[in-house]
């Protein structure tokens, strides 16, 4: 950069203190209206006993009772457990599948661009449509996959798979569908991360005669760490909040075998109209996510600082 650029005087902009606030004004205003205000309103709702379907009940202040009630409810732990199983298994599978694919794509492959386009396809299908397509394909007996799976099971002589219809398999099916949709995302991020690793360490390792396995663990994985972290963080947060597909595919059933926190929340608020419990639960979910993301952001910024040194 020429010297003239570097020595350009800091101009009047910096002196006007209110100026950045003016620029941020509209954004902050909207986020305040749609962020803080509902938050406060939820706090108020959660401290009362409003049930919309029973307007004749007298409304009074109940303090923290709603939270206490929820936390003692076995349904809460069921929903929390299912949310965690769903999030952890889906993200785990997506990560290793995405990493494997990204590593495969480092090879020189003819028709790479075409393969990549096909692999990225599931990611751009709206989550809602993903739910509907799979519901159709898994429709008992007549759905495309159900039909061939039944035929195959009959051929081998095992019980036909149940997919979404049995508590035992519904959650696994949901996890598989999430993996189908979001592995491309992991792949994309890790692929970009791999591309950003310089060639020198590999050349050095090759001269030293290090084996592929060791190269992978001592060079590729450490150098890929920032990309891995960001991919894991984004996917974990999004998987934790998954709603559309589950709502369409099982709506929490059979029984409550796929009832994640989000699904339970909508059931409480919009099926049973118990808005106070719904509000309390939404605040609990918010705190859970806030804690999770604060931890994630700490880890992220720490690795970024390490990088900088």
């Amino acid at each position, binding site marked *: 950069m020429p010297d003239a650029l570097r020595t350009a005087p800091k101009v009047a902009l910096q002196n006007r203190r209110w100026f950045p606030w003016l620029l941020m004004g509209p954004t902050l205003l909207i986020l305040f209206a749609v962020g803080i205000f509902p938050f406060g309103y939820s706090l108020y709702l959660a401290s009362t006993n409003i049930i919309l379907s029973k307007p004749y009940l007298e409304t009074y202040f109940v303090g923290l009772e709603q939270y206490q009630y929820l936390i003692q409810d076995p349904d809460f732990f069921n929903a929390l457990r299912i949310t965690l199983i769903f999030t952890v298994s889906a993200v785990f599978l997506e990560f290793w599948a995405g990493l494997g694919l990204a590593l495969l794509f480092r090879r020189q492959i003819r028709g790479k661009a075409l393969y990549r386009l096909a692999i990225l396809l599931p990611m751009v299908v709206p989550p809602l449509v993903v739910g509907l397509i799979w519901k159709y394909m898994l429709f008992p007996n007549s759905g495309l996959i159900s039909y061939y799976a039944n035929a195959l099971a009959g051929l081998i002589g095992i019980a036909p798979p149940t997919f979404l219809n049995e508590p035992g398999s519904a959650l696994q099916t949901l996890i598989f569908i999430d993996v189908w949709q979001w592995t491309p995302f992991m792949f994309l991020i890790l692929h970009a991360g791999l591309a950003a690793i310089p060639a020198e360490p590999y050349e050095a390792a090759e001269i030293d005669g290090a084996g592929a396995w060791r190269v992978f663990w001592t060079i590729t994985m450490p150098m890929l760490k920032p990309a891995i972290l*960001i991919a894991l963080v984004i996917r974990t947060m999004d998987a934790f909040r998954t709603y559309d597909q589950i709502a369409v595919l099982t709506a929490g059933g059979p029984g409550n075998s796929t009832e994640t926190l989000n699904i339970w929340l909508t059931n409480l608020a919009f099926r049973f109209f118990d808005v106070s419990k719904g509000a309390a639960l939404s605040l609990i979910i918010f705190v859970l996510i806030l804690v999770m993301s604060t931890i994630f952001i700490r880890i992220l910024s720490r690795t970024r600082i390490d990088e900088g040194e």
Partner: protein
Amino acid sequence: MARDLTSVTSPAAPEAERNWWVHLVLLVICVVAMLPVVWMVMTAFMPRDVAKAVPPQWIFTPTLDAFRVLIVDKGMLGYLKNSLIVSVTSTFLSVTLGMFCAYALARFDFAGKEDVSFWILTNRMMPAVAVILPMFLIFKTLNLLDTYFGLILLYTAMQLPFVVWMLKGYFEDIPRQLEEIALVDGDTWFGAFRRVVLPLMTPSITATAIFVLILSWNEYAFALFLSGSTTKTLPPAVVTFAVNAEVSWDVLGAACLIITAPIMIFVIAVQKQFIRGLSMGMVR
């Protein structure tokens, strides 16, 4: 030996002589990735009795019946119009407003800057489902249920944190001296911003806008609970076709295709920006 292990060693290694197994693996993955989408497209063009036939029919005479049902009987064009209005307006608003906010956060030093950016991010952490309930009650009080204004406001707010965080990083990559020179030359702040910064930011802003548009177009939860007969967007409308007692799969497939096709065509058209924007924005 090293040749076989190119995937974990040098990225510049030449194409392995015999990596037919790579093609095999990739082909299988592509089939798994594409089958549901291909089946959806096929279903959309099936006659009604073929769509529910057992065993599944792979060969049939394509028909546009399902689309006719959707457009003539189900008022699909109205939902399409609603979706367009809501997603395009909210994308425009969130990118425009978020751009200035990101610029302020990237360029100025002021007290509480870190707190403001973190607070903006926390707005993205709230799951949509958790916001719906209070918003529903507030909208009901303010008579905003089933209005474009309400939906656009919500979508704009939902996308703003994402826009701000994406663009903030991109602005930080542009040396601030460039604008300072323009200011010394007597330009106004806005002039410098428009003539110097904005042209450099166009690719990043485009990439961000693409994502925001896709996210808004796909949004389901808010639209389900907060839109009504006059503003219902495509996603909640399509679900109503699926939960009816008698599901006609051909109509459902066609409806899914109508939601998905614009995005797919769009993404394939802007593939480069999409992939670059997503990967570079995150792996910085």
